[in-house]
């Protein structure tokens, strides 16, 4: 009797053991990503975090279909392209200037840039907490600030004044969010932030030649100066633009390539003319930049959008080498020997976006190509200098710079230039490079140029794109819409 009782008691205690299961078991370690603690413990992660900010530029909502539609198809340099039945969702509206705030491209571009700003703010926040070499930290902060300024520059050119978020925000901090995320600042305040970021970056960043070869592609002092010069130009701060572009020129870090057509080819990638490019490589490339603009038909190289317009083609001077370097005519034989056949849908395509399947790095994936996106070039700086000079009355300087460009383009030099000449040179030099629309708007020439192209530019409305309606809804109605939308 007693032994059975003993057994039973023993059983009972054994059975009660599982009840003492550890509450500690609920502390699970993540397997898919690093915790903050582990991440901050490794100083090598500082560079990785900054690389992650650069990575944003490869995404679809940064420079792909939506950006191409808003900056290029809208302008008189390009038409929608592709087949007539394919609207590209809203690209026909971009072409005809009949877009509205609910169109998908605006939301895409807005979200893309703010995602980049989020990454930049995050990087700055964590860079403070990582213990790394001071020089490296200094440079990394400079790179991040350059990128943030680049994102805000895109936003202010498209939408005007926007919410200025410059630090990491706790998602539960409703008050800060309502004041900072959902309130648009003025255009002037936005530019002030861009200038502040770039000025700080200029102080921190090394020159292009001071970087190690492995770091080619990172933001440089020249890049920050070039972007700042451009920002001054857009604000019509002619003297500042003149001076800043002068600094870039006198740094002697850059020079024009001899062959205009090669600037956008793989062999011209990161060349002497390149100030800042989005670095793309096979398997980690610019998403769908090639695909959107690639020739449509058989052989199938893309969707065929953003075709150079007839008005652009007809505007070139005779003998201008830039026409052949910008416009791909169909039918013809391309620079790599590829036959552009009759079985392609459109008569012209953007030659600068052309990715050669036979002569350049290629693996068949049209949506993920190795073509770097040229954001800032030396020729751009020369033209900024010329335009600023023209406004300041320094006509000799303007003429010299323009002639540098013209000679490279196979054209004879000129003895004097007017502002209109400078602007024309800018059009031909930078055609299909996502600047034309902004140039027309900031110089006040949009109405006439678009009328020549058969489109109606509404003054007082079309200078700015509409704030995406989805963003206004998400803000609870706090974000204000631009006039006319």
């Amino acid at each position: 009797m007693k032994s059975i009782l003993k057994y039973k008691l023993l059983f009972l205690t054994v059975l009660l053991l599982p009840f003492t299961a550890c509450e500690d078991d609920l502390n699970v370690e993540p397997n898919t990503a690093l915790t903050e603690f582990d991440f901050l413990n490794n100083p090598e992660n500082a560079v990785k975090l900054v690389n992650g900010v650069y990575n944003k530029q490869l995404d679809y909502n940064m420079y792909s279909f939506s950006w191409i539609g808003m900056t290029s198809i809208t302008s008189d340099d390009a038409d929608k392209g592709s087949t007539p039945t394919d609207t590209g969702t809203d690209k026909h509206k971009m072409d005809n200037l009949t877009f509205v705030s609910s169109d998908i491209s605006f939301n895409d571009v807005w979200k893309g840039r703010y995602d980049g700003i989020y990454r930049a703010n995050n990087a700055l926040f964590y860079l403070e907490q990582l213990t790394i070499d001071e020089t490296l930290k200094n440079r990394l902060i400079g790179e991040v600030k350059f990128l943030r300024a680049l994102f805000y520059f895109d936003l202010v050119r498209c939408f005007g004044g926007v919410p200025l978020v410059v630090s990491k925000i706790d998602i539960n901090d409703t008050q800060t969010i309502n004041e900072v995320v959902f309130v648009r600042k003025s255009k002037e305040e936005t530019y002030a932030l861009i200038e502040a970021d770039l000025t700080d970056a200029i102080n921190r960043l090394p020159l292009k030649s001071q970087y190690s070869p492995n770091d080619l592609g990172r933001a440089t002092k020249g890049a920050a100066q070039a972007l700042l010069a451009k920002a001054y130009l857009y604000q019509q701060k002619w003297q500042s633009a003149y001076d800043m572009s002068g600094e870039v020129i006198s740094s002697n870090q850059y020079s024009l390539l001899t062959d205009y057509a090669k600037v956008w080819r793989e062999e011209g990638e990161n060349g002497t003319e390149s100030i800042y490019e989005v670095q793309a490589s096979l398997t980690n490339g610019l998403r769908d930049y090639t695909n959107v603009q690639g020739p449509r038909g058989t052989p199938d190289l893309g969707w065929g959008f953003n075709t150079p317009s007839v008005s652009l083609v007809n505007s070139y001077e005779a003998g201008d080498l830039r026409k052949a370097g910008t416009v791909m005519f169909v039918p013809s034989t391309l620079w790599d020997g590829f036959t552009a056949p009759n079985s392609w849908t459109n008569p012209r395509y953007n030659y600068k976006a052309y990715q050669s399947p036979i002569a350049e790095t290629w693996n068949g994936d049209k949506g993920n190509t190795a073509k770097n996106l040229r954001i800032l070039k030396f020729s751009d700086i020369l033209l900024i200098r010329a335009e600023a000079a023209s406004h300041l009355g320094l006509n000799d300087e303007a003429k010299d710079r323009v002639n540098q460009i013209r000679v490279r383009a196979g054209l004879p030099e000129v003895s004097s230039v007017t502002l209109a000449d400078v602007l024309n040179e800018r059009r031909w030099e930078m055609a299909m490079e996502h600047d034309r629309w902004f140039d027309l708007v900031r110089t006040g020439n949009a109405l006439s140029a678009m009328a020549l192209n058969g489109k109606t530019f509404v003054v007082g409305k079309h200078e700015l794109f509409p704030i995406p309606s989805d963003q206004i809804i998400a803000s609870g109605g706090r974000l204000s819409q631009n006039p006319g939308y």
Partner: protein
Amino acid sequence: MKILLTYLLLIIVGYNSFAQEIKGTVTDENKLPIPEVNITVKGKSITSKTDFDGNFVIKAELGDVLEFSMIGYDKVSQKAQSVMTVTLKESNQLLKEIVVVGYGSKKAGSITGSVAQIKAQDIIKTPAQSAIQAIQGRAAGVNIVTNDEPGANPSIRIRGLGTVLGGRDPLYIIDGLEASSLNGLSPNEIETIDILKDASSLAIYGQKGSNGVVVVSTKKGKGNKLKINYDAYFGVKMIQREVEMSDAYRYVYYNNSALGSTNYFNFDQPYNTNWLDEITGTGEVQSNHISMSGGSENVNFYFGATNFKEKGILNGTEFERTNLNSRNEYTFFDKKLKINQSVNVSIVRNTPKPLSAFTNAYKQSPIVPVKFDNGRWGVPLRDPSTGQVAINGSDRFNNVGNPAAQLYYTNEKNKNLVLFGNIGAELQLLKELKFNTNFGATFDWSKGYTFTPSREIWLSQNPTQEVENYPESEPVNILQQRRGDSYRWNWDNYFTYAKVFGKHDVKATLGMNRSTSNNTENISGTRWNVPEQSNYWSLDLSAYNTEVSPGSVVSNRRETPLVSLAYFGRFDYEYDNKYLFSASVRREGISTFQESKRWAIFPAFSGGWVMSNEDFLKDVKFLNYLKVRGGYGEVGNGNSLYALNIPVFAADYNYTFGGSQTIYPGSNQPYQVDPNLTWETMKEIDFGVDFRVLNNKLSGSIDVYDRKSENVILPVALPSVLSPDLVTLNTGTVINKGLELSLNWKQEINDNWKYSVSGNISFNKNELTNVNNAYFSNFIGGSINNGQWTKQVLVGEALGSFYVYDVTGIDGDGNFTYSDERVVAGSYLPTYTYGLNFTLNYKKFDFSVDTYGVGGNKLYNGKKAQRFGGENVEYDVLNNFWTPSNPNAANPRPFNEVPRSSTYYIEDGSYLRINNITLGYTFPKFFDQIDKVRLYATAINPFIFTKFSGYSPELSGNNNADPLGSAGIELDAYPTNKTFLLGLNVSF
């Protein structure tokens, strides 16, 4: 002192000497013993119970009146004799049934919550590889959305929409093993399915029960005789409804009008293709099942094997599943220790084809041929000079692929081996105290490959190019090999105390549960250019066999596990088989939330009153059984988007630097988290009445419930500057109020004719009553991926309501005019669901019809709204469309623009589906050994009555049926299937 003691002893002994040990057996009318019968000595507080064999021992004096009572039987009083045989007559057949509830079981009559039970014979009637499809229409408040893809799971919703995110499916408990689906189990294995519907029953499962619990009991061996069953069926599968698409003429007319041209496309086209016909055919299904079961006094065993094969309606799809199930039960020490063990193996072989082929067939133009005259695959190319489709046409007029080519070039195979089982023990420690332990686990190993013949695909898209033109730097083919494994387990331990004090029947349960899931790891490798024959498809045979080769991608992903720990207790009290009371509490913690938010307590209590056992109702002749019950319970939900609610840094945000364009690693925090994220709690009050009248011919139950889910956890998109990816938040409060009614009428007209009619209907109203998170209040959803959205969070409306522009008319150009503001346009959630079943037996024939329907729901015809220029249009769009002479048409004039989200695409989603029609014949016994041979013919899903113009009105949507996702929006053109089967059941 001594005298006192002796006195006491005398009294006790004396007392005893007058009392005797009365022995006896209690049996039912069929002479089968009844265990657990309560025996009381009238007037004294002496009680006893019968054991497993119906025997009892009780101390009473001869001549005492002994009362025998048991739920489900009429009470019997008999005078005590030394040896007695008592027969109890069944008062309510069905209440004998044991219903499995959380960590234990109850008799159906003792249930105080809302539970629906479905038994094996009903499951067998609808052969399907998932028993879930067979439940459709049989339980009030249980809504099942089917999925016809071979091998795919349907989804279950119990009592309206409460929560989302990984917790959409209810918890399945298969013999104590927690599982996320019934996929590995053949419907032939199932004995009963008990669906726990209300919070008072579910609370003991805590967060796992937040969407209901489906408890599955599998077949066990019974009795001494060896029993063998063989079930087989064979059938054909076809498309049930098609949406008629335009032919070449209508297509040309529409597209020309949309472009404002008369001859963009030539009306005279060389080809006219019906794409859906080209990619589908008649499917076949076949299943064979054999099982053996039996036992002896101490051992019960069951062994079953099933093989299911399906050739799908989409050309090239194949699916095969083989199940082996083994279940054994052993008893030791005179039944004091019971050990049950089950081991199940499921082997699946699947050759899938991309379902996007259906959508491509919907979109592709009919003027494009399947193949051109020279044998090259058809491509949408138009010759601008003739307006006809031609192989060398330069105008590629749409972006849709050739679905027949897509199917032809998809080479994918997947294999799964799932091993699941459990082992449990029940130990009777003392007469009233027993201990249960149960450990269940599922292991899933998967492997598969995808072979992509890149060059062939390129040639199919460029029909005038030849092999020589194919760029050298592109791969000829790409092979991806995948391997993965995942496991989950749960371990339950609990004590049960059961004692009868006179008329009081008390039971208490106390225990704990520990589980872990989401332990998944996947690894896959890709390489280019392996030899073409399939026996050489391994990565090592790639032509690029070097360490770092082009196109070589290795991906390895391990998921973060989810761990949960809970303690629970329950108290059950029954008085005189009339008054029932039950209370439970569960304290649970899960690993997902941050430390201070992890734990929560879920209480519940419920009561019942078996009114029909009361004296005042005893004489009411027509009333056989009446029980009222009610309860309150709290259940939680802890499922978040991410396994851990902490900020993390993810990899793979790489960027290229350097002259040689090397890729360097980059990191990013893809999303932010709300550290305050905590449990979602669902509080429910439920009242119900169960009754049986008219000699048990009519039975039914009514349930009324009011369910409030607080802090509903949903994925919310924030402004990208705050968090680019979705954030899981506690968003607000959703209530579901409803009524469930089920009725069953059974009648035996005479020896030859027998029939039954049963129906259930449930009404549910879903409403978002409160939003406590600012991001959520401005959240929009229901995107159809072209920039248009269709749903918004609206307080006072059902969650996931459509919010679109109202079409107010047609203007002078033939375009719709819209309201200024959006309007609420209904919700995809049905306001009522119903099922009707009818069975008829005539001699050896049996006939049954099952139907299922929903109403009050609206659907959005998204694929129609996604149309791009150059794609095909539905036939009906050109039936009554605007022309200057027909200004009041139902359809606007042809257009290529992206249309606004509007009421034009909102359609009534009500439907009535004939689930199943079966006619069977049971052969007369020609061999003594053979118990039963039945031959049957079944039509599954032969008709569906609905006004919806799309393919299927059952649309559960993406993201685990996120109400603000694509639930209720038809974006793909997947047709539903109907199946005709011939089958055989043999048992001996």
